[in-house]
């Protein structure tokens, strides 16, 4: 995502969501209670949305990388063993 498109994305999110929503969203992404992000309540809606979007992008990027890595790993496993390897990897 380019810096300009990232800003555009954030602007759109801020229009849709207020600070409370962004905080709740971030807490959900991080797997914590909103109260555990207490100090972030001082931030304005745009800043919270920016942070939430950055975390979301990182998590999405991780998920994509893990899926691609598993797929590529299987391609390197000799064909006769690939079925067992896929099972071991939970594919």
């Amino acid at each position, binding site marked *: 995502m380019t810096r300009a498109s990232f800003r555009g994305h954030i602007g759109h999110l801020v229009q849709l969501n207020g600070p409370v929503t962004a905080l709740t969203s971030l807490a959900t992404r991080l797997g914590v209670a909103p109260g555990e992000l207490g100090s972030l309540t001082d931030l304005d809606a745009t800043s919270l949305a920016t942070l939430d979007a950055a975390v979301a992008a*990182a*998590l999405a990027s991780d*998920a994509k990388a893990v899926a691609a890595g598993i797929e590529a790993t299987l391609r*390197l496993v000799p064909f006769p063993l690939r079925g067992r390897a896929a099972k071991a990897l939970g594919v």
Partner: protein
Amino acid sequence: MSALLSRVEVEKLADDLSVPAPSLAALEELSVEAIRSLRQQVQHARYVAHEKRLRRLAAMSKMAPGALAAKIAQHALGPELSARVAAQLEPAQAAALTKHVKPDFLADIALALDPSRSAAVLAAIPDELVIKVGRLVLKRREYVVLARFCASFPTDVALAAIADATPLEVLTIGMYTEDDQAISNITLALAQDRLAAMGEEALAAGRLDDLVALLSKLSPAALQHADVLPARKPEIVARAEELGFPDLFG
């Protein structure tokens, strides 16, 4: 706590999230502890999101011969994923795997490695290789990574890795290092002429605030060792007071 140190923490968070630091500038209003806690929460969330699959990849690496495991790391997983899988490996196995991959790839892995989850693995890697990889990371100017690196290895290993760092690079690495004891030990081991050069160049480059950030982390003994610019000391002390570090030199 100083806004200066909060800025440094925000830069590290931005580095973790691969976003420009200015996009997170609003976080600089928070305390250092709050930003550091947020960064740890982000790291933890990213880790647990794929923990099960990473464990499975690690289990597969354990079963594969070393050469195949290395091939999988380099050609299928890539450095970021390999760094996460490495944290799941037995230290001896991870050390054995390093024999099959090039130092350049290990440097790529180092950029993504979480030392808090990989301490046992890092401890199993021979010092010579650690130093070689550290020098490659320095060439890439990855100072946040080097700061983690310096806090994860013995002082002599860290010093050897950054032996070719310029004075301003030493300043940057020190500023980013979270482990105050580690950066104090490194400071004590640095020659005073090198510390003087770092101070002079920091002032010449308009990086007085960064110099104060570094000095504020040092133990009394390290601070005394780093007290090498008597002519510029009043200027440094005055700025330290402005930034919330009264009595910097005691």
